[in-house]
């Protein structure tokens, strides 16, 4: 390609690789242009919380040095990346969207960060998100909401809203997010980009600030399925520093994207479709027709415990969150309330002032469901129902190679529209939460737009560790 700064908003990983190989541009020139563009455009969305120009330029120069020495610069060579601000970066402020960590400078890099930088990635900065990844709109950030690049009066979704917005806006080629109950797929759907939640354990969470440890995932955002698959391939695989990371071999995903999906059996869960009304439904069903035209065989499969997923999730996730967030006590992590005369008052004051409303709500709910006399009725009960939900998926995958489903009951909503009704906000996560509870790989791929031009995503879910089939379907769908 002939490189020009005006290409930046639409660049792909493959184009960058070719431009570097042909010396049409150096990694340092590209990084400089990408940083300038991202910083100039950011006020429109507030997608980035802060930029990392020194780190980006150092990474780009390492890529240029490798190319000059005739070495392979890596699969992400020179690729401008945005990173959700819940993933720790050594020496680079990591706030988790919280006043509690407004000045926190991590002493180490997350494994996912080490791996993408080793592969040549250029981290431009850290992106805005709901506080400690708790939310579905990015309105729970202590540093102001993010605007959807496709509709500035609307939310980008959440909690990884900044990462989705950066990729949609073109201020990053790819981005990292985290997903606990839909926090990658839902913003990807709202912003019209690809968002991938891999199998639980596929990507090390070492260095991902813990929210709900049995549900947390790191995954990529990109403007194409191929680019998302490339980033996942770099991050995936066993990490001795995360005992929950899986030893399963990581295939070369892109080598298997041959566009041939004829005869694949896709399951459509009727339990999801009864709640799917309006234009989001029309766009989704049009997408299902496109899959049929590609030769996929679509049949109904049942996920009978779907109705219980939200209740199950909001018990398990808040219980784990109340435990994980106990560490923010004013002793180790930057923020401490002033003037408390005793340790106990210092703890309470620090947490009362440092956490925002949604974090407090979830800590309270989680503490309640774990407290004496309620543990069996709530937490243990939810863990049992979670077994049933996981079993639903295992049974469904006996009959289908993949499940296709909507991502959200509606497209991006207006800023402020749902923030005062937490239960309504929780209920909107219905289509993404079941896959999270089962730990299966799932992704959102752009499916179309409503009459107002709002993007709608299509969700694809596959068996544990079968991201390959998920990417094959998504890639064929994207090109159809």
């Amino acid at each position, binding site marked *: 390609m002939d490189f020009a700064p005006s290409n930046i908003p639409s660049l792909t990983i493959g184009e960058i690789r070719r431009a570097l190989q042909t010396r049409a541009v150096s990694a340092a020139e590209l990084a400089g242009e990408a940083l300038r563009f991202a910083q100039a455009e950011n006020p429109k969305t507030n997608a980035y919380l802060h930029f990392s120009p020194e780190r980006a330029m150092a990474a780009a120069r390492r890529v240029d040095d490798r190319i000059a020495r005739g070495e392979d610069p890596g699969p992400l060579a020179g690729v401008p990346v945005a990173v959700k601000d819940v993933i720790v970066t050594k020496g680079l402020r990591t706030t988790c969207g919280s006043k509690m960590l407004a000045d926190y400078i991590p002493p180490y890099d997350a494994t996912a960060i080490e791996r993408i930088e080793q592969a040549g990635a250029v981290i431009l900065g850290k992106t805005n998100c709901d506080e400690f990844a708790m939310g579905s709109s990015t309105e729970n950030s202590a540093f102001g909401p993010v605007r959807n690049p496709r509709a500035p009066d609307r939310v980008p979704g959440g909690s990884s809203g900044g990462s989705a917005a950066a990729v949609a806006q073109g201020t990053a080629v790819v981005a990292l997010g985290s997903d606990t109950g839909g926090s990658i797929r839902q913003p990807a759907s709202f912003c019209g980009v690809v968002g991938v939640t891999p199998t639980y354990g596929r990507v090390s969470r070492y260095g991902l600030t813990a929210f709900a440890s049995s549900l947390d995932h790191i995954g990529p955002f990109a403007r194409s399925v191929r680019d998302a698959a490339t980033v996942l391939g770099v991050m995936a695989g066993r990490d001795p520093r995360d*005992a929950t990371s899986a030893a399963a071999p990581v295939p070369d995903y892109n080598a298997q994207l041959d566009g041939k999906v004829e005869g694949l059996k896709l399951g459509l869960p009727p339990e999801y479709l009864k709640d799917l009304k309006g234009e989001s439904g029309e766009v989704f069903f049009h997408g299902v027709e496109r899959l049929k035209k590609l030769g996929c065989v679509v049949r109904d499969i049942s996920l009978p415990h779907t109705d219980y997923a939200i209740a199950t999730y909001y018990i398990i996730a808040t219980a784990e969150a109340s435990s994980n967030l106990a560490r923010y006590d004013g*002793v180790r992590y930057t923020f401490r309330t002033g003037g408390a005369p*005793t340790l106990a008052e210092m703890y309470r004051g620090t947490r009362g002032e440092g956490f925002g409303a949604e974090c407090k709500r979830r800590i309270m709910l989680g503490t309640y469901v774990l407290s004496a006399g309620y543990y069996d009725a709530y937490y243990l009960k939810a863990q049992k129902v979670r077994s049933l939900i996981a079993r639903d998926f295992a049974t469904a995958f006996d009959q289908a190679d993949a499940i296709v489903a909507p991502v959200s009951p509606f497209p991006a909503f207006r800023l402020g529209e749902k923030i005062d009704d937490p239960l309504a906000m929780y209920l909107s996560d219905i289509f993404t939460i079941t896959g999270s509870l089962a730990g299966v790989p799932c992704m959102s791929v752009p499916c179309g737009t409503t009459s107002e031009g709002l993007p709608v995503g299509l969700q694809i879910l596959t068996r544990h560790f079968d991201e390959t089939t998920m990417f094959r379907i998504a890639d064929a769908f994207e090109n159809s």
Partner: protein
Amino acid sequence: MKISEQDVRQVAELADLKLSDAEVSRLRAELDGILAHVDKLNEVDTSTVAPMAQVLFDTNPAATLRDDVPISPLGNQAALANAPQPGAGYFKVPKVIER
């Protein structure tokens, strides 16, 4: 009503969260609504179901353990770098014992 303001204050005590009166009253109403929704789970018969304690687990129970070799820790200085009040190589906190 599933939860009273007194319950909310007790849970806040357990969670070490200082809440204003306005927060207590709002949280009572919000938690009440969420707990009412969560009651749905009682419709499900789980008498023969084991709780899901692991999402995925490799067959060998030691499969996810790393090799038992020492790795160097962060070090005192790095560990204290984000402390609001470090001192003499330690985290300093207000008085612990109340008299």
